[in-house]
């Protein structure tokens, strides 16, 4: 029981939770503040992960060089997605972003791209230089069930610092004159256009900035693990949307808290179910089947949230109107 509880608390502050939070902050800018239906945040994360890993492994770039490559690729991707779709109705952006992200996943996982992307096996061994930046001396830190190696501590500090940083960036952006324009676009595109604003350019800027956050999240996500093409399916995007809507799409803090609640609850429900199966309390499920229940919970949660509390936990109902 202690372990189940501490696993859940661990999940709250896991670097992965932080990575998801940053990617969700990106969609908050896209959807919550600009009204763009970006269903391809997974592709921005994939660009971060693969750009970073390939630049390090195949081209031998230093850490910051690899980060710069990812960021550059992310801007290119945003243009590629935005140019054909930002002039069209919002559901076209949804279909094109989801199609593009799946396309990217097929391309990186094809066996013919194996020398570069690792194909279905993915990539690893690219984090040495990042951990080289670690100033924390070797050892284990923490107490009870919360002990971490120096790398884990460093990873947690870096990820959560970036979460705070991006949350502040988002807060500043949406309170700026620029933010007022994009919120105007969310409410009524034509009204903003009639004021002489270039709606297309604003939408594009929003897509680029939010996508960049996805890319940084993608880099953070893969540093402590390997790059696996299977991770960048539409599932990833839908998870991010659930977190976003859980916290509140039109809020700054919503995506962060949403991500923490999401992973905390998943860890808790998963461990409790597994404990139930192991102790014979739950007899109608096997451990394999428990693995699928988490996804059913997410799906059901997403449905109920959108129907009964579309503004999320922290949102203001007046601020978020799902359009069209």
């Amino acid at each position, binding site marked *: 029981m202690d372990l189940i509880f501490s696993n859940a608390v661990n999940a709250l502050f896991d670097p992965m939770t932080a990575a998801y939070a940053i990617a969700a902050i990106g969609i908050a800018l896209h959807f919550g503040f600009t009204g763009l239906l970006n269903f391809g945040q997974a592709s921005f994360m994939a660009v971060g992960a693969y750009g970073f890993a390939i630049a390090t492994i195949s081209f031998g770039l230093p850490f910051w060089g690899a980060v710069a490559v990812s960021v550059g690729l992310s801007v290119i991707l945003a243009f590629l997605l935005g140019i054909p779709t930002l002039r069209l*109705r919002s*559901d076209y952006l949804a*279909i094109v972003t989801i199609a593009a992200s799946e396309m990217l996943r*097929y391309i990186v996982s094809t066996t013919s791209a194996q020398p570069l992307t690792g194909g*279905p096996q993915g990539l690893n061994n690219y984090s040495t230089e990042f951990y080289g930046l670690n100033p924390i001396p070797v050892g284990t830190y923490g107490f009870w069930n919360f002990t971490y190696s120096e790398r884990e501590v460093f990873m947690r500090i870096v990820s959560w610092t970036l979460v705070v940083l991006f949350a502040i960036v988002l807060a500043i952006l949406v309170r700026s004159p620029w933010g007022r324009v994009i919120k105007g676009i969310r409410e009524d595109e034509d009204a903003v256009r009639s004021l002489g604003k270039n709606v297309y350019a604003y939408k594009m800027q929003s897509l680029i900035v939010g996508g960049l956050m996805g890319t940084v999240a993608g880099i953070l996500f893969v540093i402590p693990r390997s790059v696996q093409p299977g991770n960048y399916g539409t599932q990833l995007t839908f998870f991010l949307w659930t977190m976003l809507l859980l916290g509140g799409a039109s809020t700054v803090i919503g995506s962060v808290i949403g991500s923490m609640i999401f992973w905390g609850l998943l860890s808790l429900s998963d461990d409790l179910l597994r404990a139930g199966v192991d102790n014979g309390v739950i007899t109608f499920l096997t451990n394999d089947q428990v693995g699928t229940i988490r996804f059913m919970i997410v799906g059901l949660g997403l449905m109920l949230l959108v129907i009964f509390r579309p503004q999320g936990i922290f949102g203001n109902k007046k601020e978020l109107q799902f359009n069209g």
Partner: protein
Amino acid sequence: MLHSQMRANRLVIKLLSSIVMLFALFASANAASAATPAPVDPSKIFTIGGAMTDCGSGIPGVKFHVTGPGLDVISTTDKTGHWAAIAPETTKYVVDRFTVEIDVTTLPKGRKLFIDNTKRSLIFNHVNSSSATFKLAEIKCAGTTGGNGTNAENPGLNALFNGINLGLMLAMAAIGLSLIYGTTGLSNFAHGEMVTVGALTLWTFNKVLMWDLVPSALTAIAIVTAFGWSQDAFIWKPLRKRRIGLTQMMIVSIGLSMVVRYFLQMIYGGNTKVLTQGDTWEVLGVKMPAVNIICSGISILVLIAYTLFLTRTRIGKATRAVSDNAALAASTGIDVEKIIRVVWVVASLLTGISGVFIGLYMQAAWDTGFSIILLVFAAVTLGGLGTSSGAAIGAMIIGLIVELSTLVIPSDLKFAAALAVLIIILLVRPQGVMGRKQRIG
């Protein structure tokens, strides 16, 4: 006029009465599928495993070398083709990477891997078990002469036939999606799960309960139709009553798709269910499974029947009226909610047929529908959102691109090719092939 109305009414009554029947069937089907047990894993330990199968029966004696932190074992497949290796216990949140290497010398004589890659790496992402999949090349099942293998002599014609075949199947699913979109505005991401239900229930009846193919297929189609009807009755109609926005409805459908998909995985497990059937026919020197040729023929008949329904029956005309302008249709006395219900039944009927055929064409698994849903969306968008003829044409284009692209690019990129074409066409002609310009606003 009166006569056709009576005919239409009778149709509705027939549909409704059959649905009541189907509900009973649905319940029994669920019981049946629950009877197929997933591999039991009673331990808390992390397992790595998989199955080597050939035409539905396991291949024993294939060796796998599993390595990873604290693990270096060789696992051999049992009589059912299953193998498993147990990783050292760990309670960590995300577990390290493991590598599985297949010993190709232990494969049956003359058999090779589909993709010449003997290693897989695995990572546990919040699950206790992970599986490594290795497919064998050129499956030739006992009792057949050619099977689903490729026809090396004539790859072009073979790809063309496959493309037409896939296009026709996608067309029915795409028309279903497009009908629902046209009348209710819903971009239904859970549409793929209707395809999956069709394919998996076909497998349940045909391969578990050992029914003949035709009654199994009809029952599977009926179950999908009942599933579609109940989806509208219990989810979408109440949501329309609450005046939930279309974007919200779309996200609800994403949630529903996850619930249904993982429910199916829970019941049926993660492996692919083989639905291969009997004979092979030769058409213009290309060998094809007979069942696929028959499916293509039936698809064409279904599409013709659907067109007649849309243009000749009163309900069909009312459907077109509602999809054109629901408010105007209501003011002429059309019961819009009733039409929407009919649309759901017709759409899920078409999708059920498509699901059964797709199962026969590419086998059935818990994520079959999910793997093609983007192709279906691509077809609908290509044709022009909300038009039936456009959806059919879009589906044919997508089907042909998917299969013909294998002639020039690696076959694991064929779905990517279709999605690329979708994006390019949206750049050039955003309203789609058959769409009207005002729809893209």
